[in-house]
């Protein structure tokens, strides 16, 4: 009896050891591949990242902390400006950028132009379904929500918008309070304008845009500048703003509120593109993997950026992306109609996009 007992115990122990060792071996190969990538990346010792001015600094701060041997530098700015810089460098045979981390539309364009290397994340299983768009051959690193933002103190008793359509018939006291941005240079703005275009159609959507003209809205150079004016109260009502730009202001305790429009907010994503001619291909891949890692995605969420990984909640204080009503946007279709949409915006708002 005792014998049997001990034998069974021994067998189970052996089995456990076996499973453990098999498991360890599996983990071991995964680790080996990762270690090789790290070693190769650290050998390259440098990495240049172009992209989104809000998210790239957060990403690189964490990356540098983890891989101090790799010297990371960055150029950030509005998507197309950065994209143009990348293209003119590459086409004159001087590729300097390794990774592009910015608005989806620029990454799609770069990919269609054949500038990007293939990138299949090793941990795709752990990514949320938003991370890999249908039919898209690129990966989104993070999301942002575009919604209404206003300064409650500066606005005081002035009515707040509840839905996009409220701008079609703006109250008189909105005059001089509204700020917006240019879809020609800002990808997030383009995504939003395209969403309105697709959701409401040229007629009804055009009426919304005409409301901006009626209220003497101001055209700001960037979402960040708009956030500043929101915070100071100089322009207390944004036609819309993006969570990355506003979360910093919110964190400082400014009297700013976000509001999901009744017809839905717009989700906008930053995508990861690795330059086909990247001077530091391994470091580039390491950064791309790192961006999607549990560690970084958690850090994103803490910094007010929407993560793309299952099991990590939306940032505190911001609407949950999974339960928020979103306007369906077919970005690929919108990009094909880019000129049409931009002209539509221009005609209705009276602003020049170029």
């Amino acid at each position: 009896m005792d014998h049997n007992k001990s034998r069974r115990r021994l067998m189970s122990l052996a089995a456990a050891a076996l499973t453990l060792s098999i498991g360890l071996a599996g983990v071991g190969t995964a680790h080996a591949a990762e270690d090789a990538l790290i070693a190769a990346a650290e050998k390259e010792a440098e990495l240049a990242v172009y992209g989104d001015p809000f998210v790239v600094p957060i990403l690189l701060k964490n990356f540098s902390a983890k891989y101090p041997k790799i010297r990371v530098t960055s150029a950030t700015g509005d998507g197309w400006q950065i994209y143009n810089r990348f293209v003119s460098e590459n086409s004159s045979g001087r590729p300097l950028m390794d990774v592009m981390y910015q608005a989806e539309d620029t990454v799609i364009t770069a990919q269609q132009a054949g500038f990007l290397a293939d990138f299949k994340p090793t941990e795709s299983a752990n990514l949320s379904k938003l991370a890999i768009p249908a039919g898209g051959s690129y990966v989104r690193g993070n999301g942002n929500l575009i919604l209404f933002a206003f300064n409650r103190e500066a606005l005081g008793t002035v009515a707040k918008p509840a839905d996009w359509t409220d701008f079609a018939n703006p109250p008189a006291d909105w005059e001089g309070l509204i700020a917006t941005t240019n879809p020609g240079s800002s990808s997030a703005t383009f995504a939003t304008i395209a969403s309105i275009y697709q959701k409401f159609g040229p007629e009804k959507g055009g009426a919304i845009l005409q409301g901006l003209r009626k209220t003497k809205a101001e055209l700001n150079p960037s979402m960040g500048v708009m956030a500043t004016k929101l915070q100071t109260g100089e322009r207390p009502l944004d036609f819309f703003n993006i969570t990355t730009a506003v979360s910093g202001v919110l964190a400082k305790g400014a009297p700013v509120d976000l509001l999901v429009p009744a017809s839905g907010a717009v989700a906008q994503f930053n995508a990861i593109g690795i330059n086909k001619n990247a001077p530091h291909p391994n470091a580039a891949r390491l950064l791309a993997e790192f961006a999607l890692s549990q560690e970084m995605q958690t850090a994103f969420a803490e910094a007010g950026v929407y993560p793309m990984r299952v099991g990590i909640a939306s940032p505190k204080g911001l609407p949950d992306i999974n339960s928020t009503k979103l306007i369906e946007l077919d970005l690929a279709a919108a990009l094909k109609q880019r000129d049409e949409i931009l002209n539509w915006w221009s005609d209705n708002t009276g602003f020049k996009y170029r």
Partner: protein
Amino acid sequence: MSKANVNIPDEIGVPERSNVRRFLSRRALTGRLWLTVFYLVLVIFAVMPIASLVIRGFVDTEDSRVVLTLNAVSAVLAEPSYWAAMWNTVVISIGAMLLATVIGVILAWCLVRTNVPWARLLEQLATLPIFIPPFIGAFAWVLIGAPRVGLLNLTFRGLGAGELVDIYTYLGIIWTTAIYIAPYVMMIVAAALRNMDPSLEEAAQISGLNRVRTMLLITLPVVAPSILSGAVLSFVICIGLFGTPVLLGMTKEIYMVTTRIYTELQHFPPNFGIVAVLAIYLMVLSVIANFLQGWALKGRSFVTVTGKGFRPRIITLASSRYLVAAVIWLYLVLTVIGPVIIITAAAFSTFTWSGTFTWANVTFLWTSEDVRSTLWNSVVITIIAATATTVLGFVVSWITVRTRMAGREILQFVVLLPMSIPSLAFALGVSFFWLWMPWSVYGTIWIIIIGLIGRYVSYAVRAVTSSLMQIHPELEESARVSGFGWLSTVGRITLPLVLPAIISSWVMVYSIYISELSMVLPLYTANTRTLSILSFDTWAVGEFSQVASLSLLQLVLGAGVMWLVTTFTRQRHAAAV
């Protein structure tokens, strides 16, 4: 008469006969070789960017063939918004020029020619706006004069006066630009007033003119060439300004040519032809301004520039001198002290104007890796470029002042060419050129350094030349005859004598370089971001308080270092005498 340039009237000369073989010794040949090298360097630094820009405006690639085209030109001419940008540039620049000239002349006159108390200190303070980069100045004025929330409007509203100020207007931009440029006019006119022979005015008063008429009929006309050159300089600076119109003009769609170039670069697909043509616009504007200046000064010599230090005639104001001083102080509070205090307050606020204060934005300066790396880049670029600019400027002015080498006039022309070209346009030319060249300068700090040198070497040339001209060539010749070679002569005699000019030229270009934004904008890459780019990016993402603390850092680096260098050298200079 200068012995180095024996100017003998031609009519007493004997015409050159062509049958005499011209002898060129090795000594002269070596000289020519060096000169050729300098030509090449300067042509590459100063001329090629301009040439590239012009070429880029008129060529395009069609089916991978390079073709000559007027597409970009006609596109620009056909588009009303470019005309509007041109119009805005002209209107704002002329407005700022006039305002800056009026302020500069009045300040110069009050501070040099009257017994205003503490004139010396006031004069030094009044030059300070130069060291407040336009971007930062505009930033401060947003805090002061924005509608709804600007400090002035808050005050006026509190007083029940409503909103009186809006900085996002033509007038706002003109004011913000003018107070930045006025010190240049003031310095130029003050120098002229100091160099003016007081007997010119004494003669007028003996002839029976009263003080006011003496000033209007004698003093002003005599210094008019200086006023004019100050005004033209203001205009040229103004058309090339980027920071001010970006911050103040763009939201109200008051685009200037520089901001159009910037937005053009932000759009997809980019049209570099249009960008180049817009930059050529700016070039043409400044060429016209300089041409008009030359035309107006034709036949007028700068009688005031004698190099002789006169003791200026001081006009004694009675008790009104305190009133004048008070007005100047008010001006300084508005233009220097106020903005600096407001930026400081913003830097220590959690957000503007939360009323709660924090160290976070300031500790950010030494905890942020971005600040560290961009600061390092800025300092390295600035020190290398300022030193190289000064050295090159010294060599060029030495060649033009001291030698009769063939082509030295061309050298001077080549150097002066980029002076009237706005930095943003010039930088675009630099990037076009170096992207075409086989050597990989693009993407390194060197392209920024090369751009800065090419654009600003004329500043150093001007500063050193005027000092070198006052040093008699016989001082060098006597060293040569005493047995010193060319190099030792320069080292032992020339350099020590022009040292003050060299230092002031270094400090001047340093203060420009450390905060230069529009030159760096098209040339920086991930690796070579500078502090000015960081603060611009920080502004774009809306971290207003951090922009304020970065601005403070830039002020310290600019005005602070300048103050240090001048104090240190002045002491050393005083010790040496």
